[in-house]
């Protein structure tokens, strides 16, 4: 199972956006932990006196609240930009793959070539995909809600009964990755794994034609 390989566009989009949030998290934690530590050390009780001080700093707090709002708007702006790309659905072309999720297995079919992959309890199904190709997924569930998750692609989408879900993914590195059902779907939810094998286009054509 390939770890640490940048495979999908969704993955790099995720990485870029996450780094913004990651830095913010680290900076805020450093400030708050630092201030609390400072307060506990500097202002620990040394005598029986009651300190005298201001009960409020309204102007400072208002400016601070505006600063927080600016941070929130900045984060949301980054998020919206990334989401537009991640949620984008190509207008045409690419490979089509149909996903059928059911308790507790996956069925992947390729309408262009007629290939069908069905997992068994002993052998999780392997979704074979060509590298550098836009893949249009069409997913549906046969019973309860499932969720199609490829951790290495940093992406998941729920699969509902009676309603089809469409999304596009593309993988820019070859390799084998794990996929899982992320939405709790009953007794054997734990076992609902699959594999994703991204191969060169020629290999994919050979596999699809076999």
């Amino acid at each position, binding site marked *: 199972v390939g770890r640490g390989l940048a495979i999908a566009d*969704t993955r790099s989009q*995720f990485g870029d*956006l*996450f780094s913004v*949030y990651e830095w*913010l*998290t680290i900076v805020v*934690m450093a400030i*708050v*932990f630092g*201030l*609390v530590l400072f*307060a*506990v050390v500097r*202002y*620990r*009780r*040394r*005598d029986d006196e*009651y*300190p005298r*001080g201001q*009960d*409020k700093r*309204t102007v400072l*707090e208002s400016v*601070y*609240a505006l600063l*927080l*709002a600016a*941070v*929130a708007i900045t984060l949301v702006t980054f*998020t*919206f930009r990334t*989401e537009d790309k*991640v949620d984008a659905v190509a207008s045409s072309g690419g490979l089509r793959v149909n996903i059928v999720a059911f308790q507790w297995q996956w069925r992947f079919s390729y309408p262009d070539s007629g290939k069908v992959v069905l997992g068994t309890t002993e052998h999780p199904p392997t979704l074979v995909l060509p590298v550098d190709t836009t893949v249009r997924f069409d997913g549906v569930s046969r*019973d*309860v*809600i499932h969720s199609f*998750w490829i*951790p*290495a692609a*940093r*992406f*998941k*989408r*729920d699969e*509902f*009964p009676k*309603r089809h879900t469409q999304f596009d993914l593309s993988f820019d590195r070859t390799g084998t990755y*794990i996929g*899982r059902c*992320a*939405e*709790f779907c*009953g*007794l054997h*939810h*734990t*076992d609902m794994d699959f594999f994703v094998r991204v191969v060169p286009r020629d290999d994919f054509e050979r596999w699809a034609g076999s």
Partner: protein
Amino acid sequence: VSVATATRRVGVIDWVGSTDHKRIGVRVATYAFGFFLLSGVFALFMRAELARPGLQVMSEDTYNELFTMHGSGMFFLVLAPLALALGVYLVPLQIGATDLAFPRLALIGDWLIPLGGATMFAGFATDHGAAKAGWTAFAPLSDIDHSPGYGMDLWIFGGLLATAGVMLLAICVLTTVIRFRAPGMTMLRLPVFTWSMVVTCLLVIASFPALIAALSLLFVDRHFSGVFESPGGPVAYQHLFWFYGHPVVYVIFFPFIGAVGEVVAVFSRRRFFGYHALVLSLLVFAALSMSVWAHHMFATGRVTNQYFSLTSTILLVPAGVEYFDLIGTMIGGSILLSSAMLFAIGFVLLFLIGGLTGVIVASPPLDYHVHDTFFVVGHFHYTVFAGSLFGFFAAVYYWWPKVTGRLLREGLGKLHFALYFVGANLTFFPMFISGWEGMPRRVADYRDIHNLSLTNLLSTIGAFTIAVGTLVFLWNVWVSSRRPVLAGNDPWEGQTLEWWTTSPPPRHNFDSLPKVKSYSPLYDRRMGEA
């Protein structure tokens, strides 16, 4: 001493049927704490199963029952009732009232909660076992075909009863604040904790009916007609559920940040800093929190992600204001690191981790990866355990002397805190990594890849550390009741009216009241300002 003797002579009828708000508060807190121990033991079994890859301790079926009942128990029977128990006990005392409004209604609410709990847990005695569709009970997994058996129905009725009980208590507390305030106690002189209860009750009254609706419709769906069978049904259920399910996490957050605010002020020997900003931020927080529910549904691809991302992210503004006020109270103070203060500081530090990861999951492209994984499990346990429960224990160590007339042992309290602080981080921090690396939530087993066996083992060790901390607390309670140290009226130099009366307070709460000229009347007296 005479008061302490009187409390020991409480009869069974009085214990079961008293409408004294103090008895109701203690009763709700006591059985909620019992449900906490039970639901906590479920968590220990789950962590034991997850300590190593493979199934060693239980079947998948049992595991599914345990996490369902752990989550349902903690939300329906532990955290929301504990929050309201604090309010029922303390709000009348803090505003100088002699009793709670509608005491008989409160008594009904009080007993509906354990009745609901017993109903829910009775599922374990049925043929198909207890409910096992998760505490969210999403349709169609929770319908009659996919969740046969009475366990699911008992879960529905248990949830309905407990939710109705909490709603009744909230109505009583809110009415008390509006109607029963002492002379001089204006709305903008309510203590910080009482304000936090006001917004809590507003949220309960506004959002809990959605759960009543969702659960009732689920019962109809199971036995009469398929309410959620249409193509849009499953999403509709999720909207109904999360319209309750998100506000409820603020219901179990506000009272504890209010309690932490009181503790921080008293043990810093300062009036709470930025009181008006806090009140405003609580109201803004409550209003916004009614408009964020579908951030639990980003991965469905069936909601307006950008709207819910915006409202959810904006929550960092009122939350940041509250942090400003808490830290502002400490800076310039005279800080005593008592057990209560340690838990309050633990709340401030650890809730921050829950809050900041909350900002992360409020971003749909990031949530696509971490939603429904252990990352989210880590996130919300930092808010509800390392946040709310730390706040609850800050409240316990702070108000225990008022409620019982006796002091808890400080040494054991600090040991309790140390075990909880280490245990919480050891349990919940590795969950961020587990989820990130590919571990979904609600799984009894995992493949031994990406170091998942290491992160899971750490989480398990942490969970048992928390369990030891809980035992230390119970030991503290035992020791302190066997060899009592009397507390007196006001052992901490409190700032609010509950410290004016005896410990425990008499049936009618107050023999006299001081003048109320601010949100901290006893502080005013101490500083010669009244």
